């Protein structure tokens, strides 16, 4: 069993979670010496009426100076430069990011530019480049979720070389995270399911990877418990405000957990599927999660077994012999996915062959699995996976996840 010897933990984001959390923004910004915020969002968030809710919460105490809503699905350097210029033009002194991961990353990139008065964002890529606090940044997530309101990284595409750049620094953490269930009330059931499973994967991988520690475990366990309890009911009843708030808190806790422990092969393969076939991240996570746990079972089985309690409840946990709890956890996750599939009338995918593009064609052709497996080996998250992964293993897992069949454990290498 892995023994880290040393661990560290940090989450410096002031978080407000309640049904009227947005109303706190003006006072909290004032405490940071700011009064002229710019809102950054995307067209989808605006169309859903969410920016209007935020603007209403801000006014009349602190109306937004500007709203920039032309953020693409994947954050890019050109967009960051453009918005930073607009920030200066409008005389803003704070940022409010309203949206999902791309909006958050864009806002973090803009914050670098405006705080450092930089000409080029690329000068700040990498880890530990920033040396001082940035302008006030408020994160208002509209999914539950990526947890990017509590992460200290931003991934921003450089279209000139078609490469994703990583920016990492504790100074990138938002100052404030606002978890208000009104921001996810209109999220369609299949997106609620996918983003919920994204959060679940964050928490489960945080609990079962090599970077786990007592502090991240506490957050992961709470997140898993909340998602297990609330995700399916919220998918079935989207206007369940208490459930929406619980899921928002869960995604936040899961973000804290994985930020302080890292993740594993589910993210390794999921990033690759997203990069090669452009499948949404949450969909990748929910499909791959049971496979990652299966693959690692001979190494992290006891930890996986502990998750049976929050996932399936004490009756199942108590009735399952200790040596079978890990398998039961995986089985329950598959059943959970099945439940989400039914609740979303088939829009939540159980395997990759079910995932389609907007025009209905397969999003993950079988022929692409080799490329996906090859690309996965360059992903940094593999370092924290309990078991090593080579090309054959990655391909085997992808083939099983494509078909929707359990892994053949006889072929899993036990290094």
């Amino acid at each position, binding site marked *: *069993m892995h*023994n*880290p*010897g*040393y*661990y*560290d*933990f*940090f*989450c*410096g*984001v*002031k*978080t*407000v*979670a*309640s*049904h*009227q*959390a947005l*109303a*706190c923004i003006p006072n*909290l910004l004032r405490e940071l010496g700011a009064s002229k915020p710019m809102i950054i969002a995307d067209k989808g968030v605006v169309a859903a009426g969410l920016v209007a809710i935020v603007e209403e919460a801000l006014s009349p105490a602190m109306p937004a100076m500007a709203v920039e809503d032309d953020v693409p699905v994947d954050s890019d350097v050109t967009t960051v430069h453009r918005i930073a210029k607009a920030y200066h033009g409008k005389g803003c002194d704070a940022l409010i990011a309203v949206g999902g991961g791309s909006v958050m990353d864009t806002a973090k990139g803009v914050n670098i530019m405006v705080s450092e008065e930089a000409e080029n964002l690329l000068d700040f890529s990498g880890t*530990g480049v920033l*040396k*001082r606090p940035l302008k006030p940044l408020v994160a208002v997530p509209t999914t539950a979720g990526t947890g990017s309101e509590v992460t200290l990284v931003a991934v921003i595409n450089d279209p000139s070389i078609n490469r994703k750049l990583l920016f990492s620094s*504790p100074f990138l953490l938002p100052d*404030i995270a606002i978890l208000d269930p009104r921001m996810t009330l209109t999220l369609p059931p299949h997106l609620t399911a996918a983003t919920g499973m994204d959060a679940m994967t964050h928490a489960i991988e945080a609990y079962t990877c090599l970077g786990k*520690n*007592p*502090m991240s475990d*506490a*957050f992961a*366990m*709470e997140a898993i418990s*909340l998602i297990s309890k609330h995700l399916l009911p919220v998918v079935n009843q989207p206007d369940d405000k*208490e459930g929406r*708030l*619980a899921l928002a*808190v*869960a995604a*936040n*806790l899961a973000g804290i957990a994985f930020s302080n422990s890292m993740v594993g092969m589910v993210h390794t393969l999921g990033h690759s599927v997203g990069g090669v076939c452009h499948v949404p991240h949450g969909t990748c996570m929910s499909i791959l999660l049971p496979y990652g746990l299966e693959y690692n079972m001979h190494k992290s089985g006891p930890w996986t077994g*502990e998750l049976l*309690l929050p996932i399936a409840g*004490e009756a199942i*946990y*108590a009735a399952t012999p200790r040596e079978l709890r890990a398998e039961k956890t995986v089985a329950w996750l598959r059943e959970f996915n099945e439940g989400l599939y039914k609740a979303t009338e088939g829009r939540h995918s159980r395997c990759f062959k079910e995932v389609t593009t907007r025009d209905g064609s397969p999003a993950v052709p079988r022929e692409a699995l080799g490329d996906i497996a090859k690309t996965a080996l360059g992903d940094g998250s593999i370092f924290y996976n309990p078991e090593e992964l080579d090309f054959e293993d990655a391909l085997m897992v992808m083939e099983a996840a494509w078909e929707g069949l359990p892994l053949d454990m006889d072929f899993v290498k036990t290094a």
Partner: protein
Amino acid sequence: MNTNVTPFVFPSKIGAGTRAMAHLPYDLSGFGAVRPMVVCLESVDTDGELNPLEDAFRGSGLTFGVYAMEATPTMETVREAWTHYHEGGFDAVIAVGGAVVMDVAKCLAVAGANTPDLLREMLNTGGTVSKTVPFAWVPTLDAMCGDSAPQACLGGKQINGEALVPNLIAIDPRMLSSRDPYTMAEAGLGALATALCLYEEGEIHGLIRPYVQLSVRQVMAGLLPLMGPQKTPSKGALRWFPKEKGREEEVAYVTAMAVAGALEPLAKKSLTFSLANALAPLSRVSTEVLAGVLLPWLLNHVHEQKERELSSMLMALGDMEHLCATPDPQRTGAALALLQEKINRIWLGTGARLPRTLKKAGIPRERLLECSQGVAEAIEGWHAHEIEALLLTAYEGRRVHPEMLKNGFMQEVV
């Protein structure tokens, strides 16, 4: 879910385990600091207990200075420290120790970013601090859970503000050797009470629950094995650190102190701590011990009389098997019993030096009424007679009949 609109933040970076201090030079440089001043007790300096810190800084290119302080500091202590800080060109503060050392170090961090005169003014007015120089804490086993809280006390006066929370906390086993069981028990009770008093209102907010569970579990994992003659290392703690490096329990215990500090601003609004603070001047023991005495009675009352559900407390106090084995209707009772059992074991570990009743804590019985009236005026949702009945229960150490509580009937309990 409890959805009171309360912002919550714990902005310290905690590093725990083998050679945790080795990360300090790099982490401090992330704040732009290259020349920290260490604040510690004289004995820590003269006994060579800073040697591991020197090892940590060796090779980093950074050096540090040392201000060795007296055990009963005053504003003049801080002023003297500031003079050395200012003249020595220091740019960060590292507190090595706990309790009064932390108070002085925090005050120095404020003065370093402002001036001693501004610090004095803040202390006089109970001001809120918004700015300090970069500030790290290397706890020893003298740590108290208020050390990482957003407050500092000096000469009976207090300042508050998130800026008083350490930027960095390095929990290094090499600094956790010498210990006094009574001091640790006192601090451990304080941390337990800080975490569990939040159940007074029933279900705890989801954002805070991990901190509560962590504090309680780490206190239990660390403190109990260290108390008394038989030290049984907990499986949970041993899972993280190689046995030959040692001090897993000490690291767990100090981590609990650090994490509990995050809960302190919430805990001080509780009835438990309102009463403990009101009674402390009348007692021979500290607020932390009094909170530990009051807590089980108060939670029991909250459950029985106010019908608040406390079943999730079992997740913090027990383990998974315990939780599974206990049906839901029995969980609150099981949790309360477990809490009392833990407190009793702490009592045993101090050789019965800790009081378990307000009577044993030296509180005069006749002062309970005035205390209850004072606190009832400050706390919503509680009547004076209710609080008085609670205090009487905690005074005698046995439960008062519910009818007596309902009727506010206060007679000598035989």
